[in-house]
């Protein structure tokens, strides 16, 4: 018996978009203490952070960055396809695939670094703690994104120029998660690497 609180599809669309942006503002603040903790720790124990950064697998990290950026492109193409009432499933599947590859590479990195992280002490232990916490939280967000992509894929036939809000909102979320990685990559992989 739910009656829509909105008078028109346009009003509903605008409300959904505003709601998503508000949610992303919350998400940003949710990551906030980790970024703040990182800044604090890096100022206090800068050398340990540089040392920790040199133990990261730069090739895998860079490859992963490229993969995730490409997934943003395919996500944007999915949104555009939905807007133009063209098939979206290929783009959604491609986005999800790239996300999965990213998670696979990330997981193998975590396993490779586990031994070193377990034996680290002092500033380097904090570096690894923040590394696992921040990339872990990022991966959780990416996993949720994959779930939403799967849901979109199942309901792909519903979307058209008139109704494609779920695809558009997922796009916003996906780009947000990618942007977080754009910050995480230099913070953990590139500290004074070429000094």
């Amino acid at each position: 018996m739910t009656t829509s609180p909105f008078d028109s599809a346009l009003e509903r669309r605008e409300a959904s978009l505003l709601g998503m942006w508000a949610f992303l503002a919350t998400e940003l603040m949710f990551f906030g203490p980790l970024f703040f903790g990182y800044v604090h720790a890096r100022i206090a124990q800068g050398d340990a952070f540089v040392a920790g950064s040199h133990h990261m697998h730069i090739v895998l990290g860079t490859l992963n960055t490229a993969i995730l950026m490409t997934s943003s492109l395919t996500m944007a193409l999915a949104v555009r396809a939905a807007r133009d009432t063209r098939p979206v499933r290929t783009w959604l599947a491609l986005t999800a695939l790239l996300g999965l590859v990213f998670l696979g590479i990330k997981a193998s990195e975590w396993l490779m670094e586990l031994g070193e992280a377990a034996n680290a002490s002092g500033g380097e232990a904090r570096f690894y703690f923040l590394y696992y916490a921040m990339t872990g939280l990022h991966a959780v967000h990416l996993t949720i994104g994959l779930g939403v992509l799967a849901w979109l894929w199942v309901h792909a036939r519903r979307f058209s120029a008139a109704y494609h809000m779920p695809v558009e909102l997922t796009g916003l979320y996906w780009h947000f998660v990618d942007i977080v990685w754009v910050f995480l990559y230099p913070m953990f992989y590139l500290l004074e690497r070429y000094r």
Partner: protein
Amino acid sequence: MDQKNRDSPYLPNYLTEGFTLRSWLTTNDHKRIAILYMVAITAFFFLGGAAATLMRLELATPAGDVVSAETYNKLFTIHGVVMVWFFLIPSIPAVLGNFLVPLMIGARDMAFPRLNLTSWYIYVLGGIFTVAALIAGGVDTGWTFYTPYSTTFSNSNVILVIVGVFITGFSSILTGLNIIVTVHKLRAPGLTWFRLPLFIWANYATSLILLLATPVLAMTLTLVALERLLHIGIFDPALGGDPLLFQHLFWFYSHPAVYIMVLPAMGVASEIIPCFARRPVFGYRFMAYAILGIASIGFLVWGHHMFVSGQSMYAGMVFSMLSFMVAIPSAIKVFNWTATLYKGSITFSAPMLYALGFVGLFLIGGLTGLFLASLALDVHLTDTYFVIAHFHYIMVGGSVMAYLGAIHFWWPKISGRMYPEIMGRIAALTIFFGFNLTFFPQYLLGWLGMPRRYHEYPPEFTLLNLFSSAGAAVLAVGYLLPLCYLSWSLFFGRRAGANPWGATGLEWQTSSPPPPHNFEHEPHVTRMPYDYQPVR
């Protein structure tokens, strides 16, 4: 729609829409969700109140004879956790905000009705974890979870409570998000921003804080839990961390949280006072700007909780100055409420007594806040009963008074019945008297140097503590009274018309209780709010 029809008790309304428990637990109607919240927070209010009662019982005599020190620690922790996160923060936004925001702006419902119901379930889930922690033996860190005690030394159920608070935070966030989108997108035609009731402004500003501050608490508490579980982290100095980092992050949320509690209360006072003074609110635009001013400066003052923590002296000076600056918009509001009364035709009905009580107690609480914002004085007053008295004047004298005033003011709209007026006034006065008797002596105790969070004290503090405990008994009676007569009035109260107070808000233009979708015809707004005429 003629007047006779509008006042008919047999008009279909949101309460008669379904009578089964299922119809309540699966509703998407913002008014029913508000009632669900009201029931839940009332239960938590009396749980937190029971803990406070035991504490005042212990403190009636200097010796620690009623409960052990450990039990006392658990009592004040559970009192703080329950009252802050499970009563005060959801009180006005989730109960009255949910009920009134769509009605006041002429909308059929909140923007996201299903999300609204979800946020109630999230709240209940968080509550279950917290109650489970209580049953499992409680927690003794204080509601502030200061590290390294919470991460390393405490042997109580820290993680269970943190999980409860973490979950409940998301219910706050979703309620805030819903209110923001609703106010932006669902205002009736003609209802411009500067025609909005101040209650809407207040809940809008509160929602911004809920949205931007709550996630910081969620992540900070997650880090505490991780550090406790894994023994690596960023807070414990023994592990190379910094406990001040925790305090900064915690108060970055928890100071704005004070404004989450008091801004909606200010919105309530701004509705009740013009109605019972029959005067438009004085300086409407300044009232709206003051709300936004408090909400934004409120984000920049958290360091005044840390003056004696060893943070940099320059940081202390800046935080002190910014804290003084919050007093400016707060004072504007108090002056404007007072100016609204000037030459008004005042009726001292129960809601008005609560609203006036709110203004007076908020004034005392706010001014004593300036004592604490002064660097040198704070060294003397930190962690004494002066702090306890100060924030209870804001949170209980301010927020709880306003919450009760709002419940009485909108009771005819919510229930379709009038509360018994004489009983309402007696309860309001009892609470005002009991509150001051409980907490004013605590200012004096703090000034004399009695520290907070101890279950025993030197005998020279006996008399003032006895006053305080006696006041707590009066206060308890005062809080039980509305519970009784409001429940009674649900069945036996006189039927209320659409607009028993002759108030101007849109919510009074529909029947009481409102129909499921609020308005039979979408209202068109052509006038300023608070369009009151003096009684000749």
